[in-house]
Structures are given as structure tokens and as C-alpha cells.
């Protein structure tokens, strides 16, 4: 399963839905497996738009409002597509006291989006994390897997400009 998910970027939409249907089948169409199924769906599609939620509801014979209720309850699930580059700002205690909030504001200004949103060109998306384990380097952000240490608002533009 891992390998398949890893290849998701190259999958056609048809392949994505057929993989999702297989997952639902593997989880025996059971409502108490809904959260696991949603995890699989998010791994396959990158996010959980209404069409994917509808597909899941229909295959499992449950209501769309219930699926949507679960999706919107857990912050791990996203109904917005993620950007090519996922920016995570640490707001754990150390980063917070060393000005993490200012980094959030600077990134929001620079990108023109709010937390949990993605830029219209789908290049960047913005998320907040609680501690990424880099407290000695606070305040820290990570973009995809690259961690930036002792960030200050003035550095933001320069950091983002490295991403094409």
C-alpha cells in the first residue's frame, strides 16, 4: 500500500478512484472504519474535496453530511488542496515565545492567504504545527522537509524566493 500511495502524483483520476474503492472494500465498507478510509483517501488525493467525500458516502451507503462532519472535525483532514510546497510554522512553546506569531503574520502577508489555505497557483500552503522538535533553533519553520532556523519576518521573502 505504501508504494502505491507514494506514486499517487502520477496516478490518473480514474486510478485514484479505483484505488480508493479498493481501500473501502478492504475496510469492508464499515462505518466504524470511516476515519481510516478518509486517511487513505487523503493520501491518494492529497485532500478531501466534496467529490471524494461523495464517492466515499455513496460507496459506503452513509450520508454525505456525516462524512463531512468527520472530515471537518479532525484538523488532519483537509478539504483544500495542498500547495506544491507545504509551509509549516512552528508555534510550540519555544517558537511561540521567540516570535513565531510574527512569522505567521509575515507569511500571511507575503502569500495573501490564511492558515490552512493554499495560494491560488497551488504553489504554497500554510499550516501551523505544535513543536517540530527544533526548539534550540526557534523560531523555526519547515517547507516540505527543509527546516529553517531562527527565522525572522525580514527573511521570509528571501526564503520563499528559492522555491520555483
Amino acid at each position, binding site marked *: 500500500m505504501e508504494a502505491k500511495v507514494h506514486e499517487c502524483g502520477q496516478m490518473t483520476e480514474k486510478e485514484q478512484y479505483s484505488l480508493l474503492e479498493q481501500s473501502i472494500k478492504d475496510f469492508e465498507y464499515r462505518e466504524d472504519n470511516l476515519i481510516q478510509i478518509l486517511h487513505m483517501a487523503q493520501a491518494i488525493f492529497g485532500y478531501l474535496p*466534496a467529490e471524494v467525500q461523495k464517492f466515499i458516502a455513496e460507496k459506503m451507503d452513509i450520508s454525505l*453530511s456525516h462524512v463531512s462532519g468527520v*472530515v*471537518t472535525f479532525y484538523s488532519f483532514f483537509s478539504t483544500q488542496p495542498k500547495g506544491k510546497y507545504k509551509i509549516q510554522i512552528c508555534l510550540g512553546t519555544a517558537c511561540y515565545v521567540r516570535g513565531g506569531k510574527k512569522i505567521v503574520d509575515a507569511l500571511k502577508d507575503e502569500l495573501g492567504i490564511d492558515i490552512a489555505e493554499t495560494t491560488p497557483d497551488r504553489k504554497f500552503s500554510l499550516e501551523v504545527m505544535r513543536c517540530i522538535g527544533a526548539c534550540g533553533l526557534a523560531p523555526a519553520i519547515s517547507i516540505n522537509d527543509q527546516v529553517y532556523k531562527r527565522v525572522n519576518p525580514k527573511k521570509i521573502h528571501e526564503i520563499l524566493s528559492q522555491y520555483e
Partner: protein
Amino acid sequence: MVNIKINGKDIQARDDMTILEAARENNIQIPTLCHLEGIHEMGACRMCVVEVAGAKALQASCIAPVREGMEVCTHSKRVRERRKVLYELILSDHPKDCLNCGRNLSCELQALGDIIQADEARFKGELSSDTVDLSSESIVRDSAKCILCRRCVTMCNEVQQVKILNAQERGFATLIGPGNDLLMGTSTCVNCGQCTTVCPTNALHEKDAIETVWDALADPNKKVVVQTAPAVRVAIGEEFGYPAGTIVTGKMAQALHDLGFDYVFDTNFAADLTIMEEGYELLSRLVGFMVGAGKVTEKQAEELGFKGKLRQPVLPMITSCSPGWIKYIEHYYNGQLGHLSSCKSPHMMLGALVKSYFAEKEKIDPKDMFVVSVMPCTAKKYEITREEMVNGGYPNVDAVLTTRELAVMCKQAGIDLKKLEDGKFDNPLGLSSGAADIFGATGGVMEAALRTVYELLTGREIPFDNLHVEPIKGLEKIKSAAITLEGVKDEWKFLEGVEVKVAVTSGLAGASTLLDQIKKGESPYHFIEVMACPGGCITGGGQPRSDDADVRAKRMNAIYAEDEGKTLRKSHENKDLQQLYKDFLGEPLGHVSHELLHTEYVQRNRY
């Protein structure tokens, strides 16, 4: 039985009772907010907390079972203070504009304040989202008024199984709704309005038609016609202080005259008409089936009057009076639409007749007519906007008021129903049989149809005491009966000995069970009655909200009493209806009927 003490009083309670039930049985009232007997019992709001001796925490009495030797206090200082904090917390996220709220003086949250006596507001802060969803023709969702008690969620998901109302998001952002970007009007909501009857506040309520109706009444160029459904007359009295189950037919008719309606007609007339059309439709399906099976020749069918009228023999046939039910089957069982009777619901039939037959008779241009239906129903508000419900370019019905809205209009006009003398419906669309009255309770349409069809086939009355088909009376979810046709008239001889099987359900969960049977090809029935609301129209989504646990039974008994009080008890014996067929319609299922009284359905998606 267990022995417990509540507020120092020795009480014997059944083992399976909750503290709340034991208290109420002994006339000790504990305030509740989210609790709905038999429907929503989950201890969510904790307003019903009580102190149990020896227990560390306060207990939610609505879910805490009684135990032998338990000592309970329902009003200790600790209990009163806890309730006050809970109440203040709810109020901290609730707009306190009670005076301009539609539920002022009928709000359960407000009524609770009278008991709690919260004289301060210690918790101040931001209010959560104030989205007002006006997308539906029937139901308005005002999230600012929502206290997240989740009664509507239980009603929508478990009782009705429509499943469009669920909690979305979490914490402070929590919102009850269909989710994604769907609204009440764009979701698969069937407009049954049961959510509006259980909502303790004004978060869910019917879309107001009161001003529209006042405007029509004030328009000197309009002839405003009103009609009332069978279930309104056994419930509207409650809004004026009468106990549940009081019949106020005459007073209601008088109130409508006093409000200034030009003609006061009775939907019951059209209920009798429905029986004629639907009864013949059932026969045409049965005969069509027999022709297909080679048991009846085409010639025989023609001789019985079914020339060119034989329907696809899709059985069981299912009633179509309940527009919530219609939208439900269109979304959820759209492969089974052929089972629906093609009859419009009675008030749509009456509207169509008002703007044709009656308009011609009185020489009124139908464009100057405005038809108002007073209904126990919120789904009828949606129904009148369906594009099929138009004849000659005019909508059959122009506005629908719920029973609750009519009560408001009476109060606005200074009419106290209690003080009125009995008035009468106008003719020619005002006379009705007892069979029409019982349309208002679950099982009524079926019984009315059987009274007529059985007699038509055999020349004798149905073989049941007092014309009541006992097995399909009552409030159970699914009821059924089998009647063997014996001694049928010569022309119907091919039906001799046939056992006609019927089923009746109210509430959409039961409908779903019967539809699943049909889908699997396992339905043993010929004819099924479905009403969207549990109990039928008597407890429809537009009826007065009641705190009487026996309200269904009381209104049902009133409906049957209204029927039994009449000498005219069978639809086909309605003289004005016979005249209507003679002068205008010709015959049941005829060309004019087909144009005015029958309709088609739409395949909709569930997702």
C-alpha cells in the same frame, strides 16, 4: 421495582427507569433542555443534573438509571448553581434579542430562564457564526440561535433517516448543517420539518408566508381563497389554550372568514376527490396486471371503463399525498418512482379546481385569484414551487401557511379562537366525508380508499366495525392488513377471492424499510400508504409544538371522532363531488382529471 428517595419523598420506581422518569412520574419536575422523550436521550446539555447522595459528581438525570436505596436531590444549592453556570454558558453564545425572535414566548431556552433565574451574565465574549440559510422554500436555518443540543440531528438521522443535518467543524466553530457547501435548499432535505418541531429555539423554523398572505388579503383586485387540511382542525386549538385533541373545525372556519378570505374551502373536499382518483388508479393497475396475466381480456377492461386508461401494472401502488415523502423517494429510491400514484396531493387538486372549475363558475379570471393552503406541513411550501404544479400558466396554490402561522395571523388580527362561534366552509368545495377527515392520521388515506374501493367492487361496506380497518389504525411504524374480496359484483368477478394486501407507514424510516422490500422484489403488498411524518399529518412539521407526550394519540382520536360524528363517511357518497364529476371532470382518470389532478415525478440524486 426499586425503592429510592427523591427530595425526601419515598418513591418506588421500575428498575429500567432513569432518575428523570421516576421523578416525572411522581410529579417532581426536573428542568431539561436537550431531552426528548423516546427520541433524544443522551445527556448532552446536562441541564437536568441532580445530586445523588454518595456520588462525587452530579448526575445527568435523563440518562442516570435508578438504583435501590438511591437518595436524590433535584434542587440542592450545588445543583442550582451548576444549572445556573450551564445556562449562563449557553447564553454567552446566544443572541439575546428575544423580543424580536420568532420564538419569543414559545422558546424552550427562554422558558428555562424562568426556572434558572440567571440574573447576571458573567461570561461575555465573541458569538459564533450567524449564518442564516434562506435557500430552502420550507425551512430556515439560523445558526446564531442554535444551542447545539442536537435534537434535530437525532430527528433527521435516526427518526426520519434523511440524514442531512449533522455537526460540522468542531468546538466554537461547530455548525449543524448538511456540510460541504450545501444548504438546506441544495441538499437532499425533504422539507418534512420535523427538525422545526423539535428545535428548542428559533434555529430551525418554517419559511414565513404570513406577510405574503396579508398582502394578498389587502389587495382589492384579488379574490383570496383559503383551504385547510384535515389535521389543522384538531391541533390549532392548542395555540389558543385548548388541550391537545380538541376539535375546533367550526371556530377555525369562522376565524378564516374573519381574517377576510373571500372563500373558505376545505382541503377535505379534495381528499374525497383523491380517493376517487387514487381508488380508480389502483383498480386500473390491478386490471392492467390481470390483462397482462391473461386473466382479463382487453374487451372486459374496456367494458369496465378503462379504455385507454390502463396504467402500467406497477404494484404495490404507493400514495402520493405527502410532499416530504415524494421528495424522499425522488432522492433516495429514484428507481421506484413508478410505484407512486400519479395523484397530486389534495390541496394541489383543490387549488387546480379553484382556478378552473370554480373560476369558470363564478366568472373570475384565474389571474385574479390567490389560493392559500393552511397545512400541518412545511413540505407543502416547497411543493407549491414545483414546476409540475401549474395549470394554464397559473400555480395551483400561491401560498402555504403552517398551522402555527395561521395561529399567529389570528393573534395579529385580534381573533381569539376560543371566543368564536362556529362558522361554516363555503360551497361548492367545502363539503367532505369522514373518510376525508381521517387523511390527517396515519392509516387514514388507506382506510378511506378501502371504504370506497371495497364498496365499488362488492356493493357492500367494508367488513370492519364502524368502518375502521383496525389493523392499520394506530401509531406503530409499519402496519398491514389483508382483505379478501368476497361476493364481488359480476363485472369484477375476476377479482373474486383475491386477497388484497395493504401496508401503512408514517415516518421515513418505515418508508425506507418498505421500499427496500420493493427493491428486492419481496413486497407482498398491492397498496401502501406513506406519510413522511411519524403519526401522519397530525404531527406534521407545521403543527403546534407540544409538550404533551400523548399529543399524537390525542390528535388521532380527535380525527377519528370527527369522522364518526358525520353521517357522510365515504368519499364516493359526497354529493358535491358527484356533481363535480357530472359538471366538469367527467369521470375518474378522465381527460380533465389527467390535466388538472395528476402529476409526474422527478428523478433526483441522493449524492
